[in-house]
């Protein structure tokens, strides 16, 4: 509970200190590159496999009900609305949450963060604001790309047993998807990304001395941000429900 308060005030500083000028644009770009671009291969691979496997596993049930032709629609909805955003976010939390936690944690214990402070530079601004902004912007992009790759995997999955043209497959998927399926799914990834960034930075900044402290920061950053992703997902579904978007 004590920790909740600390995380909250750490988050609050993002909106006070973090968004004041002057902006650290170069560091922001650098972080976007590291956090977004370098995560793409991993996200691409997992998304592809997920789309393929999901399709292969759903097919028998749909065949039983005689609605095999609905396979692209079912998979498309599942991927775009839920599985794509959540799996991508969890992979992201594992890769990026831990690396931010470890990086800032080791900067903390070797007094590099203090060194910034004593030279009159706000480490929150240079280190935290840039990383949180980068995770918030990059996760939605990764999710959109991941969704696309997943659907391609699914297309291959459909084609293992029957033959569909890629045009027809994507036509079927997109016809079944509404604006109200896509938009809330993408918006929630903004929050997932924000959570991964804030939690990683918070854990790094509160790292205790020693190599062990850094390991603990990295590890607990992943655990806490993964839990946060599910909590946000739960809230998101309630909100879309209330707004009548379901």
């Amino acid at each position, binding site marked *: 509970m004590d920790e909740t308060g600390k995380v909250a005030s750490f988050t609050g500083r993002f909106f006070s200190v973090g968004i004041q000028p002057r902006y650290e644009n170069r560091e922001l770009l650098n972080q976007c590159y590291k956090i977004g671009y370098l995560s793409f291969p991993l996200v691409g691979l997992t998304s592809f496999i997920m789309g393929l496997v999901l399709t292969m596993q759903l097919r028998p049930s749909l065949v039983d009900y005689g609605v095999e032709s609905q396979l692209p629609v079912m998979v498309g909805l599942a991927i775009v609305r839920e599985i794509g955003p959540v799996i991508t976010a969890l992979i992201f939390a594992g890769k990026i949450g831990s690396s931010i936690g470890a990086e800032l944690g080791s900067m903390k214990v*070797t007094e*590099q963060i203090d*060194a910034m402070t004593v*030279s*009159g530079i706000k480490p929150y601004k240079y280190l935290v604001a840039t990383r949180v902004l980068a995770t918030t912007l990059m996760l939605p992009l990764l999710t959109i790309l991941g969704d696309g790759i997943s659907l391609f995997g699914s297309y291959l999955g459909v084609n293992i047993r029957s033959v569909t043209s890629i045009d027809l497959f994507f036509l079927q998927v997109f016809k079944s998807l509404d604006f109200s399926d896509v938009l809330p799914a993408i918006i929630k990834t903004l929050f997932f990304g924000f959570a991964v960034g804030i939690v990683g930075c918070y854990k790094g900044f509160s790292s205790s001395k020693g190599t062990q402290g850094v390991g603990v920061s990295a590890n607990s950053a992943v655990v806490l941000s993964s839990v946060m992703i599910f909590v946000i997902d739960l809230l998101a579904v309630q909100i879309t429900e209330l707004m009548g978007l379901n």
Partner: protein
Amino acid sequence: MEPKNNKPIIVIKDLVKSFGDKVILDGFNLTVERGTNVVILGKSGSGKSVLIKCIIGLLKPESGSIFVNEDNITALSEDELDETRTKIGFLFQSNALYDSMTIRENLEFPLLRHWVDITREEVDRLVSEALENVDLLHTIDMMPSELSGGMLKRVALARTMILRPEIILYDEPTTGLDPVTSREIENLILKLQEKNHTSSIIISHDMNCVKNTADVVVLLLEGKSYAQGSFEELAQSTDKNIKQFFD
């Protein structure tokens, strides 16, 4: 450059700092006159590093006051504190170089952020000059992980000096260096004192360094300033707590 006023540059009154129920500083007093070097002596763990971290505002004392240039550090807002910090150089005992940046970037980092109108040529000139001062110009494009311990200390010194601070707080500037390099560092400290009229607090166990650089020596014992005086005065003392440092 030469400041006209001759009020003390740092005044510390009744400083108390503890961690949990362990009291580290217990009513510490110190006055640093403008343009002088004050050396702090004290056993390992006596709170020397804690003291200078309080001065720069990294640690918040429980009570007491710290005046730097007549600003009360303990009462400043974060933004005001950042402003004051640009006038104070701080050498970490652990060096604390940014290990993801090259040596050049380490030195540029404060420059580019505080002197926003500075030109590229000017930055390059200041960085080269600072590295030349510590004889390490050839390392400019290396990463900190490629340098030896002594070289890191010298780079850290160069970074500390780059903003031409009026006050420099050195945490063990010569520890771990060979006698020749130590002597060079001492000369550099003296040169800065003379040229920029820098006032310094130097933490050191290295008696050669103390002897060469100190205008005033302060012995920190049990959280208080136990003794104060010139190197010669303390060296001749018969008090056993003082004597053990000079034997």
